[in-house]
């Protein structure tokens, strides 16, 4: 079976996010004075072969820990759906 894992990687809370700050500033200069904060993360899709959803999840969890996120500065979450 084939699965699509949609992985979101975010900066840990409290860390400086200069890209988010710059985008927030740009939105405000466009007139969106309601904008309080902008944060930038990464969205990664991994298409993976696995016997079932649980197995796919196990592999994706490993991938996040090993490579997709850096635990020093980032947190990750993912959703897996069959394709």
């Amino acid at each position, binding site marked *: 079976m084939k699965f699509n894992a949609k992985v979101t990687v975010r900066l840990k809370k409290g860390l400086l996010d200069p*890209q988010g700050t710059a985008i927030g500033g740009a939105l405000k200069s466009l007139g969106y004075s309601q904008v309080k904060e902008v944060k930038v993360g990464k969205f990664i899709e991994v298409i993976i072969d696995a016997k079932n959803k649980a197995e796919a999840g196990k592999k994706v969890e490993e991938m996040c820990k090993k490579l997709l996120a850096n635990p020093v500065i980032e947190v990750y979450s993912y959703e897996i759906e069959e394709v």
Partner: protein
Amino acid sequence: MRFGVVTFPGSNCDYDCYNVVKRVLKEPVDFIWHAETKLDHFDCIILPGGFSYGDYLRTGAIAHFANIMGDIKEFAQKGRGLVIGICNGFQILTEAGLLPGALQRNKSLKFICKNVHLRCENNKTPFTAKMKKGQVVRIPVAHGEGNYTADKATLAELKKNKQIIFTYCDEKGRVTDEANPNGSMLNIAGICNKKHNVLGMMPHPERCSEVILGGIDGKFILDSIKKGL
């Protein structure tokens, strides 16, 4: 004493490092291709600057899985010799877990390429043995992701173990916010591991070790390594 300079796809300071060891330090040096699996006999490994694997995902994130990194980790952890990571090399060392913390995007979001002043915070390491504590040197930086970040516990640990080796300062040696080019916590420009045999630094000593290049302060670090080996 033998030096090895690792070349990853996208390294672009490997020849500068090779050149400075061979022609300025006058020590034997070889290139090490990233796909090799075993290091020959080396006393000092240099991970050079550049954009290994295009900096994709995160700087250094993919390079740290290169074949040669397995033996470099062992080399570092068993104390078989010294490892110095410069710029992208520093990023690789943090991703590999050989040095604590991480290097984030510069606070200004700009790629910064200029001379900066550094203060030597610890001269009791093989990388700084020919320097004085508090000595100020002028060395160029060239990076977009040099903003050193770590949690409070890690910063406390770095201080306690005297692992902070270089901080960004002004020309008089004052460690100020104005002298911090990239937003690094505690103005950190370079740190080493607990054993003091692995150094990571964002500035480029190999770019300022010959008069023709406009500065020779990088030689303090190179000469220290030579002395220590």
